[in-house]
């Protein structure tokens, strides 16, 4: 599998570390029901057979966390974008 790193170019997936679902948002720890929200965030997954947004870390490259759109049935990668856009103040 080759991941099109926006900085490094296309690279073999073995240079990356995988973290999974990138559609999840860390809940507000101060909110009511925070424990429930954190449970869902940490443990529950849609786990789709098909289009999947997921985190890959280019550990042996530019050290960016990338949001990769990949099909879990075919492994085809539609896009990879940086979690934090370089040079842009967030």
């Amino acid at each position, binding site marked *: 599998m080759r991941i099109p790193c926006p900085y490094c170019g296309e690279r073999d997936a073995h240079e990356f570390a995988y973290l999974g679902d990138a559609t999840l948002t860390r809940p507000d720890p101060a909110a009511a029901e925070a424990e429930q929200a954190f449970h869902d965030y940490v443990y529950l*997954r849609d786990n789709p057979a098909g289009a999947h947004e*997921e985190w890959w870390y280019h550990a042996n490259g530019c050290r960016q966390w990338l949001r990769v759109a990949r099909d879990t049935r075919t492994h085809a990668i539609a896009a990879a974008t940086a979690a934090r856009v370089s040079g842009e103040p967030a």
Partner: protein
Amino acid sequence: MRYSFLSLLANGLSGQSRWTPAWRDAAPKPAYDVIIVGGGGHGLATAYYLAKVHGIRNVAVLEKGVIGSGNAGRNTTIIRSNYLLPGNEPFYEWSMKLWEGLEQELNYNAMVSQRGILNLFHSDAQRDAYARRGNAMRLAGVDSALLDKARVKAMYPFLDFDNARFPIQGGLLQARAGTARHDAVVWGYARAADRLGVDIVQNCEVTGFLREGEAIVGVETTRGPVRAGKVAVAVAGSSSRVAGMAGLRLPIESHVLQAFVSEGLKPMVDGVITFGAGHFYISQSDKGGLVFGGDIDGYNSYAQRGNLPVIEDVCEGGMALMPRIGRLRLLRHWGGIMDMSMDGSPIIDRTPVPGLFLNAGWCYGGFKATPASGWCFAHLLAKGEPHETAGAFRLDRFRTGHLIDEKGVGAQPNLH
């Protein structure tokens, strides 16, 4: 037909003409007491024990393809009960006990072969961790032995003891562990369940659930609706998809695990060996093929195939451990879809949806669990409460924090 020397003899003399189907190719009836979704080892074992132990025989196993065509037919055939945590160990030992009498019970030779599993360690810390595990096994009444380097060498003199990057210091042995012929397990359970009246329905894919209010009262299938008192799901890599039809999100990701077999060879590896300094484990089948594997590829996948980095990683581990295998050849590799749970341990539980029961999250350890998984799932379905050895496999443990994390890597399925 009961299998025996006599049946073989009679058929041999009659030109193999008298054999009858091992199980009926059933068509779905309109309704059952229990529907089991998934005709793998776990589903078929559940059906068998429902019928045999609990007398519930109005049962259907619905399989979208042919039975045993998922992970039951796609694993490295290892059986063992060398677990650490109290949530796991008694369950896997119960499974081991069931394996030990399985063939006579089913009248089917599943080639259960207790030639031992040896987990090698390469550092003091690893030794201590294995000692902890071996002692936990003893506390559960399970056999375990901590071998030093000399005893490992006596068992497997061809391992790399002299030039290894991570020298072998010893190993944890479970002598009762071993392998079983994976397909035969499926066929044995299918045949035995069929004889007790269970309908095994192949080429029947579940496409949705029938509901009355909140409760699930049956399934929609490619062969029409089928009603049931209880619906039990045992679909391994498809767990999230099937649960999704009932509106449930699970603490599960589907990952690909590759497995490998070499060309056939005269006997060279007697038991199962696992490498402690890399991702590699190996055994040898009765046909002579070396059966081996390593880590999962590490990303969500439903593709049933993996990639070269893991293949190379496994073979590097193999060569590091057994440098005599350099000229042996990898014959085939394939991938299975693992339902990787968030703590690496399984789920056998009712779900928040009335009428729906779940057997899932086996990660890459489902095969060895087959008999106990079936036994305990059947128990839950029949009695409405968990079997004593499966009491920890609750779906709500992630909420309560009663995790069963053997590896201590947390909620990251690709690391389990």
